[in-house]
């Protein structure tokens, strides 16, 4: 269908779906792809990525930074107006104040901005400001009233409107990658006067939000239909090629493919099972694979488990190595991507192709990490070997685990069982009731049993029926859990800092002093090569000691779409990648062939850009 498209036969409405969880359009309270899609297309931040992933100006026309990357000054595009849900220009202009107001909004705990923690150590003073307010709300006397604290915002928090169109951020530490934060919704502007006007109703309906992006929300029927319509006053409206984005709610994801086939959708995802079913049908040629992304899947082990058998074992390196080698990540990956599962395994904590040093070297290609990146550790024999070693170290001849006796283990909602202090080791694998998760858990359980020996391990699958946090993480009711984390900004610290002994991602309760030290050391460095080298050392430490087990990337799912690929902004983090800017929708689905061609072309262009840049 390419030829006919080239003559300009593009459709100008994008039909998509969204499922249940999408509830609010508060830009600072996003938790789903739908939310990202809506906000990224309706509100612009200072910068965005282009289709090659380059940071390009958006509402900021230009910017400068000081020597040690701690003060950043942005010159805003003038005369950009906010529009309302009728697409009408309002009296409000997008000014530097609006960006300040955005920061003020998210720094107030009352507004419960999601992901606040991610930036709490970036902007100067923001953390103290936030926690002071939180303390006051909780009734703790900090010697100031709420009003006083709120007033102090301008002095204490590192964001300032120097004039109508000049904005300045002052940062805590040297942050050369600060631009990668700016594509996050937390740095988006909000019109101050409007916010005061609507008060608590802010963003509870399309009328109580203003838009400065390529689209405005013209229809927002909760749980039914969301329509984004092209904003005629958009500063970059030439690049808005699709007139309307139409998102229909589906209760059941099941119907997506069916609807696509009936011509009701522009694009839909294809599960591994659907893929198999499409084999040999006319649809086969349209199924394309999504690029992998920066989300990393890893196993968290509970070092303080209530299960004494497991606790004994997990604190033994050999056992952890047995786990490392015993998990067949390709098989797990093939649950999502049956055709080339290998492509989606990831054995490093930090995603590849995401963080580059000034020399253009991928952080994951640093010598400390390269061997991990390149080798699939799965090796059942090795696993068995390590397992036996661990047993040798931890058990007496007759299979009694040293220091463990008969005991009952109470992981309240997840599992409740008796251990006998003998082999096999009981391992509680916690999962949710989501069908795919359940399937994965069952698969992993089977793997462990087979690869470590059924006589050595016994996997108990525990289900968290309502809230994973309540039932699994908070009470630490698990031995082994499989989880995923997105990489939020362009620095290894994005994940590594959260993995320190006191970090928010340390759900397994481990203590890694050496790692902590290395991370601290690295964060202090502003020379990127030096910084990355120390980070890679820290990461290596985690991997060497198998503290957590990364195994897979996010993405890697199949889809069918009529949207021409590689035209819209590309970005590893933030909201940019959800933008529809520049998108083209052809009347037939994109074929594999077309995709490959465009992909090659795209890569070529990037290559060229790089060469020019350097």
């Amino acid at each position, binding site marked *: 269908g390419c030829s006919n498209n080239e003559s300009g036969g593009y459709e100008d409405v994008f039909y998509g779906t969204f499922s249940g969880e999408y509830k*609010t359009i508060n830009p600072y309270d996003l938790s789903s792809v739908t939310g990202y899609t809506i906000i990224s297309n309706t509100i612009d931040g200072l910068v965005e990525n282009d289709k090659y992933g380059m940071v390009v100006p958006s509402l900021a026309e230009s910017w400068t930074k000081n020597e040690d990357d701690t003060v950043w000054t942005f010159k805003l595009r003038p005369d950009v107006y906010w529009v309302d849900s009728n697409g009408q220009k309002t009296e409000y202009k997008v000014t530097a104040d609006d960006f300040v107001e955005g920061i003020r909004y998210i720094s107030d705990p009352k507004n419960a901005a999601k992901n606040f*923690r991610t930036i709490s150590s970036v902007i100067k003073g923001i953390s103290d400001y936030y926690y002071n307010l939180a*303390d006051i709300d909780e009734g703790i006397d900090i010697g100031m009233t709420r009003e006083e604290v709120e007033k102090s915002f301008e002095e204490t928090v590192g964001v300032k409107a120097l004039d109508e169109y000049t904005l300045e951020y002052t940062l805590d530490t040297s942050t050369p990658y600060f631009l990668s934060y700016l594509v996050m919704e937390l740095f988006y502007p909000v019109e101050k006067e409007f916010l005061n006007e609507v008060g*608590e109703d802010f963003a509870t309906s399309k009328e109580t939000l203003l838009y400065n992006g390529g689209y405005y929300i013209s229809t927002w029927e909760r749980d039914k239909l969301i329509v984004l319509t092209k904003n005629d006053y958009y500063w970059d409206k030439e690049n808005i090629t699709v007139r309307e984005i139409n998102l229909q709610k589906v209760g059941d994801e099941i119907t997506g493919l*069916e609807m696509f086939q009936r011509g009701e959708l522009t694009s839909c995802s294809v599960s591994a099972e659907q893929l198999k079913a499409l084999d040999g049908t006319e649809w086969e040629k349209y199924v394309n694979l999504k690029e992998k992304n920066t989300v990393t899947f890893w196993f968290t082990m509970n070092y303080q488990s209530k299960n004494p058998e497991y606790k004994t074992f997990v604190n033994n390196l050999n056992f952890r190595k047995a786990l490392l080698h015993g998990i067949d990540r390709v098989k797990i990956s093939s649950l999502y991507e049956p055709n080339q599962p290998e492509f989606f395994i990831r054995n490093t904590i930090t995603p590849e192709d995401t963080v580059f040093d000034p020399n253009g070297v991928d952080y994951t290609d640093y010598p400390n990490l390269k061997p991990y990146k390149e080798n699939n550790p799965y090796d059942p024999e090795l696993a068995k070997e390590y397992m036996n070693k661990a047993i040798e170290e931890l058990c007496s001849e007759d299979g009694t685990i040293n220091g463990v006796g008969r005991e009952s283990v109470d992981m309240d909602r997840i599992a409740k069982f008796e251990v006998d202090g003998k082999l096999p080791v009981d391992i509680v694998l916690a999962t949710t009731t989501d069908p795919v998760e359940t399937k994965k858990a069952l698969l992993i359980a089977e793997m462990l049993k087979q690869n470590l020996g059924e006589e050595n391990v016994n996997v108990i699958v525990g289900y968290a029926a309502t809230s994973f*946090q309540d039932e699994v993480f908070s009470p630490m009711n698990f031995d082994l859990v499989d989880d995923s984390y997105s990489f939020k900004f362009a620095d290894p610290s994005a994940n590594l800092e959260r993995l320190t002994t006191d970090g928010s991602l340390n759900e397994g309760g481990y203590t890694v002093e050496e790692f902590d030290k290395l991370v601290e050391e690295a964060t202090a460095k502003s020379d990127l090569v030096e910084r990355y080298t120390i980070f890679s050392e820290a990461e290596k430490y985690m991997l060497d000691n198998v503290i957590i087990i990364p195994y897979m990337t996010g993405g890697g799912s199949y889809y069918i779409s009529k949207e021409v690929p590689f035209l819209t902004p590309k970005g590893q983090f933030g909201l940019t990648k959800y933008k529809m800017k520049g998108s083209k929708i052809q009347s037939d689905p994109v074929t594999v062939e077309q995709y490959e061609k465009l992909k090659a072309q795209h890569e070529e262009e990037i290559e060229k850009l790089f060469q020019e840049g350097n």
Partner: protein
Amino acid sequence: MKKYIFKRSIQSLITIWIVIFVVFMLLRLMPTSGYFTRDDYLTMTEEMRQAYLKSIGVLDPPLTQFKNFIVNIFNGDLGRSITVYPRLSITTILKEKIGYSAVFGFASIVISMGLGIPMGILMARYKGKIVDNLGTFYSVIVRAVPSLIYLFLFQVWVSKIFDLPMLFYKDRPESWILPAISMSLSSIAWYAIWLRRFMVDEANRDYIKFAQVKGLSESYVMRKHVLRNAFVPIAIGIPSDLLLIISGSLIIENLYSIPGMGGLLIDSIKQMDNNLVQVLVLIYSVLSVLGVFLGDLLIVFIDPRIRLTESED
């Protein structure tokens, strides 16, 4: 009569109060951590969490909360949703959703009465004949097979056969057909079966035999005596049916993506959106109690026997 209405309303009011109170107190048993989504929970410190809980008022003593709730209700303020539609006023949520459920509910009542009642009459009239057996077969299927199963298969297959959209689109009239029909599938059977049962019961009464002995023809007796009397017990349920149309159908709204009330209660309970749960329970119990009450009143008007026992006193 007045006294009866008065007494019944008092009784209904008490029931509503108790239900709300019980549910309210039950909800206090739930752990507070349920007020956060996983994401929130992770990104918040303990202090943030407490501050948040405090700000939504769940840390007050239960009785205070109950008082506040009731006072607010009487002030016409249903409060705001907490987790399901963060910060959105519940009135808005209901305003948006009730319409859909009501439209489909009403359509389904019309369809089910329109088809169910004639079906019941035919079944009673030709008791033991093919019509009856077919009707019985249909109602057995609809009542014995879990509704999820046949509704799902109905959606998939019928939409395919008649080339109808699988989902509901507000602006595509043909997409209203399937959900409206699916919603009536079981109530058609309900009306048919009960009407048949009542008619057969009636037909065995002495006064029906007597009416026949009077020389009235069977069809006349059926129409003027049997059907009329058999409709009385059916009528009791009609106010309830009409009132509760707004509650929507969870399964159907889910299958067809209708943004109605159906799944709201389950969602709000699962996400422990106390405010929303309370308001919904309040609404449902008021409606169901009111429905029963109106049903009883209706009967007073259509069944002369009841009127008398009241006015005699």
